[in-house]
């Protein structure tokens, strides 16, 4: 019954000079100066182009963009609850399938893109995201990962790194590391178990061409696709706002973030460092890690070392749970 009616293919962009000029995410939004998520939003929207419908689960990319009674979205956009970005997108997609089939709307099936934060993708929004993937709707689900519930004042989320200082994981005498839990591997949640999904990728604002081309590649697939985008947050991670791209770059250089694609069962890596810098090089710039001791940083290093052996693949990680830790 569900037949995708998309025939267009968005071509890859070869160099920065060729990036389309038209802004789909225009100046005039209340995001923090240097906001990583705002930047990735701008690049994603640009890559997608005008035949696009955006969905905004509650989060920074809702509240900061849409205050007040105005938005920066040049294309149609609708607010969703933080719980249900995947479900609302499913409804929009199903509507367009029906309307096009019945001749009530003419044109190419629009790009339908959910722009959810890490909470709206892997925590409170996980159920809806997974169901979208399972049902096979022609939708791109983007998780912009600023590693916290940032909009509500920087609280921990399932992607917040071990050892982070957030307002729900403050360090103290009883809990010196602040956050004891190790993060979920979000792309693995998608890759492991949704037969209709053929393409999952990670991206970073540090590599904008790679990011935009992954967006276009994902949109060209007929079916659900998932992008996990690293979007450094100067306010939450507590670093100087001019260093957003630097932080994104360092994350990749230290192995705290890896760039890869999973397509039809196969992994392909991008910008993989030949040698990884120590995680301390990344963490020392961010005051959210300022309270950590050598011992904590060593735990982080061990975790990262194990994970970079095969990013995106389930491997045994030294990630002691809270009941195992002292």
């Amino acid at each position: 019954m569900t037949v995708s009616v998309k025939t267009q293919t968005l071509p890859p962009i070869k160099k920065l000079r060729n990036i389309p000029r038209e802004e789909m995410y225009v100046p005039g939004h209340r995001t923090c100066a240097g906001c990583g998520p705002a930047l990735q939003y701008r690049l994603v929207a640009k890559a997608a182009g005008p035949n696009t419908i955006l969905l905004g689960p509650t989060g920074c990319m809702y509240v900061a963009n849409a205050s007040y009674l105005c938005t920066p979205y040049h294309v149609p956009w609708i607010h969703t609850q933080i719980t249900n970005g995947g479900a609302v997108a499913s409804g929009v997609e199903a509507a367009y399938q029906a309307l096009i089939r019945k001749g009530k709307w003419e044109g190419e099936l629009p790009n339908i893109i959910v722009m959810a934060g890490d909470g709206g993708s892997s925590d409170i929004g996980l159920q809806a995201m997974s169901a979208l993937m399972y049902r096979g709707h022609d939708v791109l689900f983007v998780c912009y990962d600023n590693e916290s519930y940032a909009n509500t004042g920087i609280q921990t989320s399932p992607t917040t790194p071990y050892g982070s200082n957030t307002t729900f994981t403050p360090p103290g005498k009883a809990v010196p590391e602040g956050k004891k839990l190790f993060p979920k591997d979000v792309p693995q949640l998608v890759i492991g178990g949704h037969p209709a999904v053929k393409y999952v990728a990670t991206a970073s604002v540090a590599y904008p061409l790679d990011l935009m081309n992954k967006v276009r590649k994902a949109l060209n697939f007929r079916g659900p696709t998932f992008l996990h985008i690293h979007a450094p947050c100067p306010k939450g991670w507590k670093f100087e706002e001019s260093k957003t791209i630097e932080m994104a770059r360092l994350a990749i250089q230290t192995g705290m973030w890896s760039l890869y694609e999973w397509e039809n069962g196969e992994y392909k890596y991008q910008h993989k460092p030949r040698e990884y810098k120590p995680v301390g090089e990344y963490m020392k710039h961010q005051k959210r890690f300022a309270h950590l001791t050598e011992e904590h940083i060593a735990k982080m290093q061990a975790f990262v070392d194990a994970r970079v052996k095969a990013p995106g693949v389930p491997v045994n990680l030294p990630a002691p749970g809270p009941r195992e830790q002292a």
Partner: protein
Amino acid sequence: MAKEMTLSGCAAAAQAVKMAKVDVISSYPIRPYTAAMMELSKMVANGELDAEFVHGEGEHAQLAIVYGASAAGARVFTGSSGVGVTYAFENYSPISGGRLPVQMMIADRALDPPGDFGSEHTDVMSARDQGWIMGWAENPQEAFDNHLINYRIGEDRRVMLPQFVCQDGYFVSHIPGKVLLPDQAQVDEFLPPYSPGNHVLDPKKPFSHGPQIRPDQGAIMDLQRGQAFLDLPQVIEEVIDSYNRIMGRSYSPWLEQFMTDDAELVFFIQGAHAATARHAIRHLRQKGVKVGLVKLRFVRPWPTQQVGEVLSRFKAVGVIETSTSYGNATRGGNLLPEVRTSLYDVPTRPLTTSFMAGLGGDVIPLEEFYWMAQKLGEAVKAGKVEKHVYWAGLEN
């Protein structure tokens, strides 16, 4: 061709939804409404109904799916019962405030704890503040008709509001009754295709739906729905009139009266137990008790003026409460406080009391109605009610 079928309430709902030519349906199983979705999935599978049948991952998702689909310009349908209705709760206000005419079938069911498959109105009554149109069908015929009627009301440009189209679980949803089905041409005449206007999600006409507002704009946002509910009654009357004319029915938009011409005592009720009430009333009449029935068709918008006018003619009104509202002003159900409010400014007011009955899926036997009539008669004799809430069948 118009034809008569014997259908359960669930099947009748499915027939109406099919004839309404919906575009998107979101399903999730929960007793007792599930059968409606089973019927619809068969219709979709064998090509009778061209609609996207989306298997929601839960009731909350069902509502989110139709929110998105309606915003994209589709006519939509979903449904639930019991705790499914309360699980979806977060989405009700965004849908009504977003002015999306989503239609949700409710085959009501008692809320947990614990599991109880029986009928009770509390599940969706607890959502009556959320800005949706809400009303009960007494039998499968009314259920069929209400679904079509509500699409037309909700999609009217003056209204643009979602609707809970309710029927008693099991008593209506599962017990078959005669349903006179119109032919498709009649339905097409009554219900034109959904035409939402410009505010849909359409890349050809971009809009932003639902940006954040300042607190000092909140009241104005709420007032939009407040105003819509002021404009709504006139639309309902027009639509019912149109439906009656095209389909050959004779529905009263607000209140259905039975043997009230010379009644002194009256049962005030919504939903399936009205059928038993009518039998009880006939028997009581044979014994000389001047009793009648007033049946409510819409609980939202509440027909304040009509309730006040009609009930003022009687000496005593017994409100049948098939829902609970713990700790409320009457310590009973949801209907009596609204009945009394409707009567507050009326010069001649009847005595009013209420009877908690039919809760949990229980039947209301004839004997209980006789007992209620007795209580009403005693109140009239004494010139006052003994109390405002009786738990029928559980008291002496």
